[in-house]
Each structure stands twice: as C-alpha cells, then as structure tokens.
C-alpha cells in the first residue's frame, strides 16, 4: 500500500524537539501553544526524539502494513482506517498495553491519568485536508518528511546521482 508516512533523515535531525512541541499542540484542545501549556490534562507529544549514540532519532508510529498492535488489541480500539493508517479509538481502549508490548518500537504509551494509550494518528484531519502532519511542518531542517517509500527511494537515488556527478 503506497501511502505517505513520516520518514526521517537522522543526518539532518539537530535534536531541537520542535516536532514534539508541535505534536503536543496539535493534540491539544486549543491548538495554540500559549494556551496548550496550561491545559489539564497536559497535551502529550506522540513523536519523540531519542538520543542513540551520537544520533538524534525522531521516532513515531510507522503505520505498519502488518500491524501487530491492531492484531492483538482485544477491544478493537486499535484499527486500520480506509486510507491504511493505523489509528486508535480511545473510547474503546482499556489501557491493557498489549499494543505497547507487541510494537517493535513500543510506540503506543499509556497516559495514567487518562487510563488509555496514545499514539500517532498521522494528524489524520490535516492529512485528509491536504496538509502535512504537524511534526513535519514544524521540522526546521527537513529531517522529517511526509512521503511514500517510492518517493524516498527516488530522493535517495537523486542525491546519489547528484553526488556522483559532482565528484566526477
């Protein structure tokens, strides 16, 4: 299935965590930074930047084709929508964390005061209206991209060709 997801280029990530802020604000009630910080419960980012050795790695849901979280969810809270993204319905969630357990990157995480897990929803409302996810829009260096694997491959190939030409 060829749908754009959040791809990243670790060589471009400077670790500013702007994606985290933008994600939290996007998932707030007010959608405004200056109000969102006073909301209770606090809005939480889905994307997180991890420090791995010397690299900054912005990690969020990969929206797997064969998603184990959807397979194990006992209540059907975790589901795949018609465009192929893995989404989560909090009203069905019981906070059992099976999804966290089976996810290879342990992406869904429980928010104790909400007693449900949260996960990346690819900013589905934005994407449906033709915009990019908030984290991608906020990234100042272009480390985050909202593209398909075909587009990523094309981009990588183009970089290689340009590099080869420049070296000649």
């Amino acid at each position, binding site marked *: 299935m060829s749908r754009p997801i959040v791809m990243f280029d670790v060589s471009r990530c400077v670790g500013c965590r*702007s994606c985290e802020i933008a994600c*939290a*604000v996007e998932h707030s009630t007010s959608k405004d930074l200056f109000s969102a910080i006073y909301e209770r419960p606090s809005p939480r980012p889905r994307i997180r930047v991890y420090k791995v050795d010397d690299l900054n790695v912005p990690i969020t849901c990969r929206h797997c084709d064969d998603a184990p979280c959807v397979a194990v969810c006992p209540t059907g809270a975790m589901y795949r929508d018609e465009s192929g993204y893995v989404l989560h319905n909090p009203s069905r969630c019981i906070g059992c964390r099976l999804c966290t357990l089976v996810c290879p990157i342990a992406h869904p995480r429980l928010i104790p005061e909400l007693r449900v897990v949260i996960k990346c929803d690819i900013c589905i409302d934005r994407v449906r209206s033709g915009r990019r996810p908030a984290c991608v*829009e906020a990234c100042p260096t272009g480390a985050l991209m909202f593209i398909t694997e075909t587009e990523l491959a094309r981009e990588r190939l183009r970089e290689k060709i340009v590099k080869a030409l420049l070296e000649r």
Partner: protein
Amino acid sequence: MSNIDPSKATIDRVTRELLEKALQDGVETIWHRFSSQEPQCGFGLLGICCRHCLIGPCRIDPFGEGASRGSCGVDSDTIVARGLLRHVCAGASSYTDLTMELLDYAYAVVEGKCKDLTIADRARLEELAKLLDIDTQGKDDIKLAAEVVEEVSRDMGSVTRSRIFERNVPSEIREVFTGLGLKFRGVLREIVESLHKTHEGVSTDPEDLLIHSLKIGLYALWVSAYLAYALQDVLSGTPSPRKGPMGPRAISEDYVNIVVRIAKRPLLKKLVEIAKSKEMEQEAINVNALGVNVLVPANFMMSEVVLSTGMVELFVVDYLCTMQGIVDACKRYHTKLVTTSHIGKVRGAEHVEVTPENMSEALKKIVKMAIENFKNRKEEKMFTPRTPPEQAMIGWSVEALRSYLKGSLEPLANALRDGTIRGIAIVFGCTTPKVVHNYGHVEVTRGLIKNNILVLGTGCWNVAAGLAGLLKPEARQLAGEGLSKFCAEYNIPPCLSFGGCADNARIMRLLVELSEILKIPFNKMPIVASAPEPMAEEIIALMFGMAASGVVVHSGVRLPILGSKFVKEWLEEKLDKLTGGKLFIEVEPSRAVKVLSEAVEEKRRRLGWS
C-alpha cells in the same frame, strides 16, 4: 520564495503598493524571511530554553512530562526571569552607549575639536548642570558644558551613587526600590552587576531577577534615555513641531534622495544642513536634479520596500535598527547603503566613519556619493505610489507643548483632573512581522483617543500614526468629545509625535511636570503605555522602566515569559502592589485598548477623580 500577500502584510496603502512593486522586482523582504522561520521554536517562544553556560542548552518541557529543571537545577521561573534580565540589560546598553557616543561629541565641542557643533541649547545645559549640582553663574556655554560632560561621565561610571537616578526617578518609585534593599549606583555598574547576576550559578531567585529587570528598566528610561535626549538638545537644540508630508510619498522624482535611519540627532541635523547647502544644491543641479532631500520615510518593516521606488540614491544609517536585509534589497536597485558609526557595521555596506572631528567633511562626502549615484537610476525601475501623501506634525517637546498651551502645562493638568481628558498614553516601539504592519499601532492609538486618552508617541509608531493621518490637528475628529474639544482649543493633534525611542524620556519629563502641577505622586497618575508591535530589546527595557514607574504597560507581541506562570502573574499582579504598574501581553489591539482604558479609569477612581 514563499507567497506574500501585500494586503495581509500591512494596513498601510503606500506600503502595500511598495511591497507589490518589491515583489515584482524580486526583492526578498522581512516578510519572506519571517515566513521561512515559521513555525518558530516553542521553547524559545516560551522563554524556557537556557543557553547561558556550556552545559546547555537546557530546556524545560512545557507540558510537564519531561525535564522540569535544567542541568544545574533551575526551573522555568528562573530560566524565564534570567533570560528577561539579559534582554533588559542589552536594551539599556543601547541607550547607554548612544549617550556615551554623544558624550564623545560633547567632549570634542568643549575641547574645540569639533568645529561643526556648538552649544545650541543653554537652557537644557543648565537643567543638566542643576541636576549635577554645578553652579551655572558667570560661566560661558563652553565652560559650563565642560563641567557638565565631566560630571555626566563621572555619574555614569560611579561605583557609589548616581545623582541623575536619584533626582530623575520620582521619589515614590525610588522609595519602593530602596525598601527592597537596592542601591542606585552609576548606570554602567548597574548594567554590569545585572549581567553578572544572570551568569551561571549567581542569582537564581526569579523575584530578585525580576526586580533587577525593573531597576535596569528605570535606568534605561530615567538615566540613559534621559541623557541621550538632553545631550542631543544641548548639541542641536530642543525640537519644535513642524508640518510636512509623511512617509515614502515624500520621496520626490526630481530630487536626489537620501533615506536615513540615524539615532544621533546632531548628526542628522548636520546632514540636512549640508544637503541643503548652496554648494550641494549646485552639484545636484549639475546632475539634472533640483536638489538633495534627506528623508525618514519608513519605519523598520518598511526599510526594504521603500527602496522599490527606485529613487533612493543612498540609505544612510548609524545604528538605528538597520536590518541586514536592506543590503540585498539595495542590490536590486541603484541604492547604496552607507554606515557611519564603528558601533553599527553592516556586512555589505560602504563605511564612512563620521566622527566629531571630521563631521562636515565626512557628511559632505556622503551627500556627494548620493549626488553621484543619481545618474545610475533606472527609469524602468522607478515607481511613485498612487496613494496621495499624508501630512503630519512631528517633533514635539515639553517646551513646544507648553507654548502651544499658551505658556503653561496647567490647561492639560486641569483637563486631566476634571476628566475632559481621561488619561495619557505613551505609545511606542517597533514594527514586526508578527503583527500586521502598522495595524497594532493604528488600532491602539485610534481606540485610545476615542476614549479621550491623549496619545504621546515615539519611534516606529511615528510613521504608522502619520501614515494613518493621526498626527495632524484635523485628526481630533477621530477623538472622543473631551479630547477633541481640548485639541481644537489649542490647535494640537490628539496624538503628539515626540521623536525617537530615547525621547520616551522626554515624555516622562512632561508627565513628571504634570504630576507636580497636580500635586499627586507619579505612579498614581492616570498614565498607561503600549508597545503594540515591539521587537527590539530597547523596547523591552523601556516597558520594564515604565512598569517599574507605576505605569500599566501593554505589549502587543508575546514576550518570552509565558513558560513561567510565576513570572507572568508577578508582572500582572505583584507589580501592581509594589509600584502600581503592570506589564501585560495582549495580541488583539481592541482588547488591549479595553484593558488600558479600564486601567486609566481605575487610576482615576483611586484618585477620587470622576
């Protein structure tokens, strides 16, 4: 380049036309560059990123999940308050350094090394002398000036006390800060001490840091900005209002045009004098121009687009908020950018150092560069906006207002007491891509005069208010009944243009005189202030100086303080209990007008005035 919609970028019609032309010509503007900065970093916007030591940058998670402390252990309150104090110190430094460069000129005059300036205002010199306990009797201008500059230098550098601070800051304000255990030494020591406080591992008490922001604000306003305008008056005379065309429409096709952003008025005055000399006029005629014009047609946000007239030969600056982008805009036309002070060097500009010793020689060289460049104009790039020019009255001073009020400020004091005029507002500060250009200034100003609040303004506000037609006497039709009647009686506009940013101190002198006539403490006066479109640290310093003086102050742009509830509430609530002042943020001008008008009425209630 991203798409910029001129109708959404500015409310001013001339600026809109010029921006459209600039876009056609492929000029990259501040609006383009700002949009490529968006979305801006949330940590920075909230003021919770600390970069003051090499352990950092440390950031606090505003959503309370991650780090609640920096590596050294400080929380968001300290990080916000410490960052603010650095802003205030930088802002205060700019007025202080302006004053010190003016002292260079004053020293040169008294030592006979500057042939181009004289003591132009004995009264202002005597005012300074009195402030510093210098006897004026039997001393000629030069002798008295020599003693004054020496004492001013000593006061600024004193490690023990500042008489200028002690005597200029109203006693009731000074007492509040003395009560907090503060001392008032020379401005240089105070700025250095506060910078020291912000160093890693020195002061981490957010309240102490906030109190010092207020203190340095007081120094910026009542010492450095005061000295800057007073020394400028001494060297180039006290201003009085003159009427003329406002804005880019003053750029005339037939003349050699020099656009300036110059902070030092004596230098500007000399430049005008040379440009208007017979010799330069003849040189202009030789290149088929009618003469040479020196203009201040643009506020900060307009400094690039004003070049799209294609008729600006030279852009001359010292260090009055000159944005780097002008250099690239100049390249699209024949315009040359010239810097004149070692303090403000701009990459890509030509530098002609103007000193007290070489003043007329260097300025003549600059005017000749402009005349020489006239022939390089490109017909196809020339553009005159269709919007008709607007008239404005600019250059008010306490002395000028007194003479318009028939020799005394009492009519204004009486109008305040009886409620004909409800209060006085200082509207000041910059322009910024964060606010639709001129929208904040014009909406706030219109709202205030409608509510019978007299507006006294400075800085980039001048051009905004002037272009909106608010600086001419006829603008009283837009004012409320009482203010309108008062303005009609004395033939003054409801908004008085008081000059550059340092001239906010001139406004303070006026307000002090009014409080003396009314015999009420300064911080009880129905005075408010607004910076509707601020961006410069100077303006942050002035906001703190005014709030510390008991004035309710509005910022139309979010200061980087919202990451600390403590700091925000302290500036809105605790400060009122301390000095009667307040510093609040409101990005919607109409709501700001409401809060400011209510603050005026509240001050009147506390005075028992109806």
